[in-house]
């Protein structure tokens, strides 16, 4: 039970702080949320700066503690997060790093780390959401290529992506989990159509992807044919590990802002509101400690974070929604004004209990894989 950092880690933190203080004032202004090419340029420009300063690969760093420190400090300093590089840095990249051939790693990892190429994710389908293994997008072998036909949905950053990490069915006869393969799809291939989807927050954060006889070279398959489910699980458990560090730091800062705002507008005099904020603060403090424990375990086992991430995500996603409900209470009638801070974030937070495995699926995972309860619905 040691919460102190080593001298080396503290040095890493100090150097990073120094670099951030020097670098952030030179960043261009943040682009409009609806300006996708602008967002891509901004996010890739930031990744390039990180790369040039030696931080480009930090998400894949062998030391989870350094990842933790990096995410904590960048969020504290108000630096951008991964943005359009989310899939490349946190999904596709780690998968290729873990499962790809030497040639594949050489082809794809460098451009991700330098901010040259953007990836999106083609996993979910209209009829395969929580039941991802039910996916039906077909890939038929034709010489040295797969011919891919089907439809994907909830594909973030599809409009500006160069590559898509795509799950396809290569063996329709095999048991569901054993007939899936993982392909790198070039988004400019003939037969790829992207249709943006407008979210309830009003912006187009993700898209539908239509694939009509798209030819994908066999060499773009990562892992063995029909082994894509296992390859994918490496990626998904990665997402449930340290991916939320920055967000917990942001939530704790938001709580401080809420307390300040409530003290200013008089709502702090309401004991029910104070206690509500106190309860949320206790929860986010504990979530931070849970992250430190998960990171400690990942650090010790040297592996990818495991199912413990489900415990974290279950509490975090609900707590974050409650946080914005509390923010609305602090704002009063201003909570109905989208021009006020936090209100767009409140709308975005409605996806947190759904994206990356719904809370209901997370509870199944916790109950079956950690508690050992029998499978069944």
């Amino acid at each position, binding site marked *: 039970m040691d919460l102190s950092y080593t001298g080396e880690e503290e040095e890493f933190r100090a150097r990073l702080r120094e670099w951030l203080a020097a670098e952030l004032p030179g960043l261009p202004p943040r682009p409009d949320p609806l300006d996708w090419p602008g967002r891509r340029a901004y996010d890739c420009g930031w990744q390039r700066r990180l790369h040039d300063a030696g931080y480009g690969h930090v998400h894949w760093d062998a030391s989870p503690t350094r990842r933790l420190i990096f995410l904590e400090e960048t969020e504290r300093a108000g630096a951008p997060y991964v943005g359009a590089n989310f899939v490349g840095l946190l999904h596709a990249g780690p998968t290729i790093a873990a499962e790809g051939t030497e040639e594949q790693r050489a082809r794809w990892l460098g451009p991700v780390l330098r901010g040259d190429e953007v990836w999106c994710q083609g996993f979910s389908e209209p009829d395969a959401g929580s039941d991802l293994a039910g996916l039906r997008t077909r890939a038929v072998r034709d010489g040295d290529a797969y011919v891919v036909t089907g439809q994907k949905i909830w594909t973030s950053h599809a409009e500006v992506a160069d590559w898509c990490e795509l799950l396809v069915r290569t063996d329709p006869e095999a048991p569901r989990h054993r007939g899936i393969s993982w392909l790198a799809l070039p988004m400019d291939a003939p037969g790829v159509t992207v249709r943006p989807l407008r979210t309830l927050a009003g912006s187009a954060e993700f898209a539908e992807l239509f694939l009509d006889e798209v030819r994908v070279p066999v060499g773009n398959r990562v892992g063995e044919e029909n082994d894509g489910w296992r390859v994918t699980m490496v990626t998904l458990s990665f997402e449930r590990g340290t991916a939320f560090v920055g967000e917990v730091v942001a939530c704790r800062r938001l709580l401080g802002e809420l307390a300040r705002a409530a003290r200013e507008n008089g709502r702090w005099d309401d004991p029910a509101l104070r206690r509500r904020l106190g309860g949320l603060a206790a929860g986010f403090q504990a979530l931070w400690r849970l992250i430190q424990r998960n990171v400690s375990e990942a650090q010790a086992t040297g592996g990818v974070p495991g199912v413990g991430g489900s415990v974290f995500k279950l509490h975090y996603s609900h707590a974050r929604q409650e946080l914005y409900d509390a923010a609305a209470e602090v704002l009063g009638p201003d909570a109905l004004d989208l021009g006020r801070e936090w209100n767009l974030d409140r709308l975005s937070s409605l996806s947190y209990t759904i994206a990356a495995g719904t809370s209901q699926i997370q509870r199944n995972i916790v109950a079956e894989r950690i508690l050992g309860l029998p499978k069944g*619905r």
Partner: protein
Amino acid sequence: MDFRLSQDQTDLVRGVRELLAGRFGRDALRASVDSGALDRGLWKELGDAGFFALRLPEADGGVGLGLPEAVLVLEEAGRALLPGPLVATQRAAGTVPGAAEGLAVVTEVSSEGLIPWRDAADVVLGPAEGAVPMRSVDPLTPLHRVSGTLPAARPETVLLTAAEQVGTAAWCTDAAVAHARRREQFGRPIGAFQAVKHLCAGMLVRTELARAAVHAAAVTGDAAEIAGAKLLADDAAVANARDCLQVHGGMGFTWEADVHLHLKRAWVRAALVLPGARAAEEVAAAL
């Protein structure tokens, strides 16, 4: 940073769990419930094992361990539903003669004006004059009540009480899961149904969150973090006991099932020091 338990800490947990399983298993627990008396023989054995002298420096004849180890030991005590003023007697080790050795039972007036085990205690710390007995909801925690100027809640007492709550939260999770795997209805274990499965998953989430909070607060010793840990641990213990009772169905409502004993103790620990509203206020004040 390595927030996991060290090997020594893991060994300590195993040792305490084995000691309590051997000396205060289910039969002993139910015998205590029936008699309502504090087992002084067990108290002495706990003293001999270093339970009360845990944090007393070695130079003073103690075990010389810290708050993190105390939290682990009290979590096991909570899991076993060990009765008696454990936290107060541990606090008194080194100052009240016999406390460290388990020869004296020491209780104290809580910040909320409650005195557990007053009649069984050799020494009562704090302003106990005029205390009146209550019919305690917990058959294994006799309570007196006192009014007037009350002592402030000591952060260490709050934290160690929270640790006991984590023990109850963990016991309730284990008991609910065990029952859900064993009990069959509609031709299958009830744990295969999502309605039951999701209750169990929620219990684990509460336990792990509260445990992380309590362990961290033991390391930092920060008062606001301790208050937050108590808030989460109270919620984990009470809500898990409620859900555990629900998973047990009609059996859960019987005197014979142990779950009501955990629920009642959880209520006592929640009300004894820094109850929910006070804890939440203390965390909010630090915002």
